[in-house]
């Protein structure tokens, strides 16, 4: 499962973007990613609340689920810090930490 994660906004207005492949993640995080960032889970998370007016300093997260096969299409979901499903936000936080750690590693190399 491949995902492109884009984060923007927040008090710092910072943009952060990275691609993750669950096969490269620690197994526990990979499992949670597959469970909570699946198409079905994200649809449930975003449909449980209609798109609200943005709240001050809430971060937005774009989650692009890349297709398994070349003929497939990219699925895009957007959540923010007010997403009611905590597990989705937990996985996003952990994946962004992975993205930051890898960037740091590349810089050091």
């Amino acid at each position, binding site marked *: 499962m491949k995902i492109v994660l884009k984060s*923007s*906004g*927040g*008090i*710092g*207005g*910072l*943009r952060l973007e990275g691609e993750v492949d669950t096969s490269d993640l620690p197994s526990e995080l990979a499992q949670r990613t597959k469970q909570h960032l699946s198409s079905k889970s994200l649809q449930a998370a975003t449909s449980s609340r*209609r*798109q*609200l*007016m*943005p*709240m*001050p*300093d*809430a*971060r*937005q997260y774009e989650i692009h689920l890349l297709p398994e096969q070349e003929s497939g299409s990219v699925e895009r979901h957007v959540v923010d*810090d*007010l*997403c009611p499903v*905590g597990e989705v*936000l*937990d996985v996003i*936080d*952990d994946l*962004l*930490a992975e993205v*930051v*750690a890898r*960037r*740091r590693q590349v*810089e050091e190399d």
Partner: protein
Amino acid sequence: MSHASPCHPMHCIMPPHMVETVRMRGDAKLRKMCDTLEREANKARLARQEASPPTAFQAHRRVALTAQPSLQREIYDAQSRATLPGKLVRGEGDPSTGDSQVDAAYDGSGDTYKLYFEEYQRDSLDGNGMPLVSSVHVRRKFNNAFWNGTQMAYGDGDGVIFKPLADSLTVCGHELSHGVVQFSGGLVYQDQSGALNESFADVFGVLTAQYKRRQTAAEADWLIGAEILGDDINGEALRSMKEPGLAYDDPLLGKDPQPFHMDFYNNTTSDNGGVHINSGIPNQAFYLLAQYLGGFAWEKAGHIWYDTMQEINNPRATFAEWADKTVEEARQRFGSGSREMLMTRRSWKLVGIDI
């Protein structure tokens, strides 16, 4: 515990931005309710105008002038979860807990309350003694702090980009000031009105710190979030009101994108139309005004900005409309042709907004 507005829709006027929010969120029934509310609001507004001069937003200030401070803080530990508020760990008057984030949020809320009450005679965010609710330890490695409409939420940071966010008094003051904006008629969090919302929060975030430290405009650093950037980040803060665009330049974060002049206004769809980017322009205007006027920035420049927020009654205000109102408020407070009024106009001119 409920922190819902004490106003029943039948007995009060919902601020226009809230009506707009509900209209966008709601189904056909809610949209119909919004139409009714708007009609009722217009009727009430007309009745008020007939009965008294158009100074409705000053009511809270007048009430607070005679009121005793009613500071009521509640700090919760979210215990690394996303669900708010979490477990209550410190209430008003309780001793320090030993948890630095809990105590920083408690102190930061108190310092912000003090500025608004003592200098602007505003009793809490809603002008009516609303409890100041904060949650710390929100989520895991959470690189953010935000105001969700009823309370503040602070993450611990990931230790790389950010350290714990409640450690910064300017961040606390910033988040609480979003509440002040909300209860002052609001500024829609999109494009220029959203950037004004951000800028107001930055202005009163730095004023909170300056007030506590008794710093003059010349002595202050005019930085937002100087305490929270990770140790290896090449930068001094999240934003600089003195030098927008120069707060950081780092391989991980990129370069601070804030403009200081309308010539560099950033047209973007991300970040709600660049609300954290273009706020650099009104931030710079406030900084220039504070420098021109000298002394403590909360005394003159702060009052001009605060009065503007109370009186503008335009949730979709553009920079030019806001600037125009600041000059009008400077005229009202300090007199026509006063130095304060002329310097307000000049500050806006220097960032590319001619009034």
